């Protein structure tokens, strides 16, 4: 119940904000009868209406995970974001081994297996992408060799 009400409220605000920014869209002199604002406004309107219905007629709550699981989910997101930033400057092999290892540890908490999975995936995928599929990946940071 509560989850749907909160979700509906958040989505309602987002829909209204979306509509507000849609009214700010600049039109050009090449105007057609509808213009660039009408459809986003329409979509925002339907979204706002649906959010209201979700708030007023909520479904039963889903099984939310416990706080510790949320923490590890948050950590997973942080790892993925860091990985996205690291891929370009640090090359493929090192960030992939670390990120894959952490994700593996989070799914099944055994340090040794996770480390091996990370290193194995990193090297295996690098060989696959670089030599079998011919993608131009940078393996290690420049200037190391």
């Amino acid at each position, binding site marked *: 119940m509560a989850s749907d009400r909160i*979700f509906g409220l958040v989505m309602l605000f987002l829909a209204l904000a979306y509509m507000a920014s849609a009214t700010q869209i600049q039109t050009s002199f*090449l105007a057609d*009868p509808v213009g660039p604002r009408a459809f986003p406004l329409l979509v925002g309107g339907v979204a706002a209406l649906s959010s209201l*219905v979700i708030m007023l007629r909520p479904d039963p709550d*889903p099984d939310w995970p416990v706080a510790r699981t949320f923490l590890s989910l948050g950590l997973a997101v942080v790892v*993925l974001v860091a990985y996205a930033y690291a891929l370009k400057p640090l090359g493929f092999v090192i960030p992939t081994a670390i990120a894959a290892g952490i994700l593996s540890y989070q799914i*099944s908490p055994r340090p040794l297996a996770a480390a091996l999975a990370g290193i194995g*995936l990193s090297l295996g995928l690098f060989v696959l992408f670089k030599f079998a599929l011919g993608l131009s990946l940078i393996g290690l940071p420049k200037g190391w060799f």
Partner: protein
Amino acid sequence: MDILSNLAMGFGIALSPFTLMLAVAGCFLGTIIGALPGLGPSNGVAILIPLTFTMGLDATSALVLMTAVYYGAMYGGRISSILLNIPGDEPALMTTLDGYPMAKEGRAGDALVLSGVASFVGAFLATIGLMLLAPMLARVAFYFGPAEYFALYLLAFCTLGGMASNNQAKAALASCIGLAIAMIGVDNNSGMPRLTYGNMHLMDGVDFLVAIVGLFAIAEVFFFIESHGKGSSIGVKLDKVGIPWKDIMATKWTMLRASGVGFVAGILPGAGASLGSFLAYMSEKSLAGDKGGFGTGVPKGVAAPEAGNNAAAGGALVPMLTLGVPGSGTTAVLLALLMTLNITPGPTLFTDRPEVVWGLIASLLIANIVLLLMNVPMVKIFVKILMVPAWVLLPGVTMISFVGIYSLSGSYFDLLLMVGFGVLGYVLRKLDVPTVPVILGILLGGNMENALRRAMVLSDGDALFLWSSPIAIGLWIFAIAGFVAPMFMRGLLRKPQRITD
């Protein structure tokens, strides 16, 4: 005999050694993808699209490869349904109902082979149906103007929301999220940026591949972290695999009926394969009555949903190819593939690029036969692959997704966006909000708005033009009925619960 000469041309393209090799490789890869728990057809096809794109295949080859993967994943999905009681995707859910009990009785091999044959029958008949029906529908589609297309897109969103979800408001909201995201970027008509909030990266809009991979593949990783990869070990033994001729003969009418039901369900835009397997199973169940023993592991209960599911997968290609409106999550991903290859589906596809359409149809037929030949003797190998533990599989999937998306544009912004979509997908699925309408919205949003604006240009702003032709009015009526009717049929359409040990 137009069809035969067209088909001959199609086979001419599809039977070249290179294309044939792609089809076989695609089938093999697809079956693995379908069989692995946590990697359904939509997932698998989505993470492979950017990779095929960077491999530099031409349009026909890429299409052959990916449709082979698509059909293969549909076949493979049954392996994890039967052995693990984990449906690889939504339509495979119905196969678990009788497949898993049958496997527990020690007849896992029989169930796997029987479902393979049923998949073949369903997919084969559906491909023939596609061949007959699609050119006819393509001719009708020439009468479609912008007003009709707008109504058609609406129909797709309404039926998808109505049939495939438990809560209309949530489905509508999901469609709106997708449509709202599709609006971001430079407006085609006026050339002005819209809703980019001054971000240079958003000027191009949000790439649908980023959204698809995020919502499907990355979200799945979060679900596995939450569950710690539990429930992905094989609970039943697979001993000898033979061909159960008796069961196949006993279920032949079931397969044919289920294929028909599935194909029709697949054609409805937005309804898709889940409805196909559901209707096929339920109609066979009521035909058999209480004595049929459905739900306790009877061969008919395995054959019906598999034939229906695969027939619907073929049927879903009809609206996708002729109208550009996908009928299910996976066909939405295939539509994304076509758009990436710069092929615009629609009635003109059949006249302008017949080699693509008929090459595709011929390769579907080939893929089907390859899959049947591959699946019966090699089922043991696929079962071995199921043993790959989640703690290796899921990080691997994540890394492949990252490389695929990174190779599209080489920008970290797309990767961040993908992670964002992953989080969104997790939250939406937790709250029982369907994610397929989001994808459909992102894919079709631009076209839907263009149709509306073109219609208004034609009529000089008169809104009544939207309801000016019988086709348009008919589509609107179907759209509203498709959205409203399931509210009253909830009890009738209730899905059976999964069997728990």
